[in-house]
């Protein structure tokens, strides 16, 4: 039996109907006045890698803590495999958890750390040794078993924490910014490693991060949190290409935001008059005629063209250039003094002050209501895939 098989929980075949984890109208307030989490409805499918993404204070960690059992919802219910867990203390939930600072026990060896969840479950000594060995094998730390955590590097410590959270074969593993303390290169490496473990073991992972690239790289679905609610829930692809509000549009990836007013609406598209002059056509996402709106367009969807091109063509002047090795970012100042970032290839030779025309297809511009930065009005959403 391989290490991987040994650690795989028994997977219910095709248990997609009904969530594995469900949040039903969950609310949390710490002080009785403000809500850290408001009317949260979220369903996690079995075997899914779901990421809670958001800026600090957006409620994602509170949500995770409620699921782990460290916080109790002020109202609403959380169910795990259909059973409400509100009254279950954390040590009875059988949920693995990985913490940002690893939370390894400094007075125990690596082996004892990984063996801890087994020994508190009264597993026999021989069994513990075998399972700890397999778990350490899985994270490639077999030879470090008798070291103390402080003798390991950050990445190794995080792998120990992973082994410890997986060794007792929980079907759900929570990760609270587990890679936050690592440097960029190691972080990217560990992202792949966690993703591989998820694929191998088939566990359900709920992952919290404020790093959007991490969320896009690893997740099946991402819930973007803002102001205590979900601003949008969807696959990384959905979030990047079809953001539903200006918060998601600006939080995921890089976006240019132009402020303006909706002039006319025709079908899916609308005509937007930009503040300070200029006009463009964009997809209307929840805007009505006369609304103040934000138009979001990605730098890679902008190109330099000429005034006669089809689609939107905005006259601008070059304000600066940022060299990034594989491409160039051009800062183009529009006539209304707003500055757009345009992704161009490195051969482009533009002098500062040179007049250019910035073009883009109307389908790549998305117009959102200007005041819809706040979210939290989501109804229950199933898996969109």
């Amino acid at each position, binding site marked *: 039996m391989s290490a991987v098989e040994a650690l795989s929980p028994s997977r219910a075949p095709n248990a997609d109907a009904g969530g594995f984890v469900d949040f039903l109208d969950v609310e949390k307030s710490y002080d009785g006045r403000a809500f850290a989490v408001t009317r949260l409805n979220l369903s996690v499918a079995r075997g899914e890698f779901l990421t809670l993404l958001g800026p600090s204070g957006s409620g994602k960690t509170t949500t995770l803590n409620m699921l782990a059992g460290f916080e109790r919802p002020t109202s609403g219910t959380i169910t795990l495999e259909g059973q409400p867990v509100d009254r279950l203390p954390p*040590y009875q939930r059988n949920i693995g958890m990985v913490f940002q600072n690893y939370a390894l026990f400094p007075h125990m060896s690596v082996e004892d750390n990984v063996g801890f969840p087994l020994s508190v479950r009264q597993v026999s000594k021989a069994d513990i040794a075998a399972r700890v060995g397999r778990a350490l094998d899985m994270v490639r730390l077999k030879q470090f078993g008798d070291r103390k955590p402080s003798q390991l590097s950050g990445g190794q410590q995080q792998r120990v924490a992973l082994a410890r959270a997986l060794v007792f074969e929980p079907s759900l593993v929570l990760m609270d910014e587990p890679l936050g303390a690592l440097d960029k290169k190691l972080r990217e490496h560990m992202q792949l490693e966690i993703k591989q473990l998820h694929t191998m073991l088939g566990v359900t992972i709920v992952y919290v991060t404020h790093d959007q690239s991490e969320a896009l790289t690893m997740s099946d679905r991402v819930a973007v949190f803002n102001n205590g609610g979900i601003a949008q829930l969807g696959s990384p692809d959905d979030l990047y290409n079809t953001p539903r509000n200006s918060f998601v549009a600006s939080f995921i990836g890089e976006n240019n935001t132009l402020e303006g007013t909706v002039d006319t609406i025709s079908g899916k598209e609308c005509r937007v008059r930009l503040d300070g002059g200029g006009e463009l056509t964009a997809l209307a996402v929840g805007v009505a005629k006369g609304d103040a709106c934000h138009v979001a367009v990605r730098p890679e969807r902008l190109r330099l063209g000429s005034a006669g091109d089809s689609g939107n063509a905005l006259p601008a002047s070059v304000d600066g250039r940022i060299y990034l090795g594989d491409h160039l970012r051009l800062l183009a100042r529009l006539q209304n003094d707003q500055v757009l970032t345009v992704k161009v290839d490195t051969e482009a030779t533009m002098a500062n002050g040179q007049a250019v025309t910035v073009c883009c297809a109307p389908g790549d511009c998305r117009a959102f209501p200007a005041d819809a930065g706040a979210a939290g009005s989501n109804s229950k959403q199933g898996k969109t895939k």
Partner: protein
Amino acid sequence: MSASLPSELDRPALARGRSAAGTDPKSVSAALRRAEFGDRLRSLALAAPLLLLLALSFGIPIVLLLSRAVYDPTIADALPRTSQALGDWNGQGLPADAAFTALAADLSENQARGSAYELAKALNARLPGARSQVLKTVRQLEGAGGKPPLEVMKSVPFWSAPGTWPAIRTGTHSLTSFYLLSALDLRWNADGGIERVPPEQAIFLQVFLRTFFVAGAVTLATLLLGFPLAYLISSVPKGLAAILIVAVLLPFWTSILVRTAAWTVLLQKFGLVNDLLLWLGIASERLDLMYSRIGLIIAMTHIQLPFTLLPIYSVMRTIAPSQMKAAYSLGAKPFTAFRRVYLPQVFPGVMAGCLLTFILCLGYYITPALIGGASDQLISNFIANYVNVELNWEMAAALSFILLVFTLALFGIFARILGLDRLKMV
């Protein structure tokens, strides 16, 4: 010329670079040691004034004082002739008459110098009852008229009693183990062996045991009171923690004498504590809290609480809340998590706090003097008594020395069990 100049200059630099980076690790480590030696010397120089002060005002006086426990020239200086006359005595029976004559001469001279009383006291310390005998003999020698000194000496039975001369002879040895043995209720017997002193003379072992018992009881009490409080302070929000810490430290900033005096007021038979106990119905009659062991332990516990609490608190503060969360999430019930995750991590702080309190309690003086009864005096009170009242510095030094040895031994055991680097003193 101008082209070759830079390369000429570079050559030594290149050679140095090779040797540093290169093939001879021995010379590199030697260079490293030299560099570090300089650093160490500099940091030592920074501490030099303090070290000098400690040596002059602390180290040397302690050594001098403790040396009095084994070095006492009082009798040898006062009885030079007797010392000489006893030089060839074998210690059996009575010495030759010459020794009696020499002692008589020494006694008369001490009387003439005005140091007879001091000598009488010094002899008395080793030879109970010697004080009055010496003073009596001195007076008789003075008023003897024409009577030969030898006859006067022989007429006093004390000087021919068994045990007198051996005691005088050991007294004339400046280097002595007498005081150290006395501090442990031991003495040399007539056969040259070590034996326990008779029970009615034994005091110090009991006092040492009492001192250790009181220190242990106070340590336990401060731990039982301090541990939960430290846990509370480390887990409440910062603002409240600051207030609680001030509340703990407030008595800490008051002089120990003032706090002890306050307890003497509170613990009176008609004091507040007794009033409260009666009012609550816990006690049916007024308790003797003053001048009792229990009152002493209460007052000392109050004074020592911060010493135990602060090291524990400082360790607790460093334990991240995620440690316990992790333990819970891994399936540990609260008590298991506490026992296997929390307690082992605060253990060094607990040990440090307890050790600090225990060692400080061993040296308590004012509180037992003011609150304890006659049977609650600790070893420090006896030492102080020997220094201030009895003027027997040798005995005081011997008791101090034994206390120091016990304390160091205890510290050594702690350090051995725990490792000195794990003792987290704040």
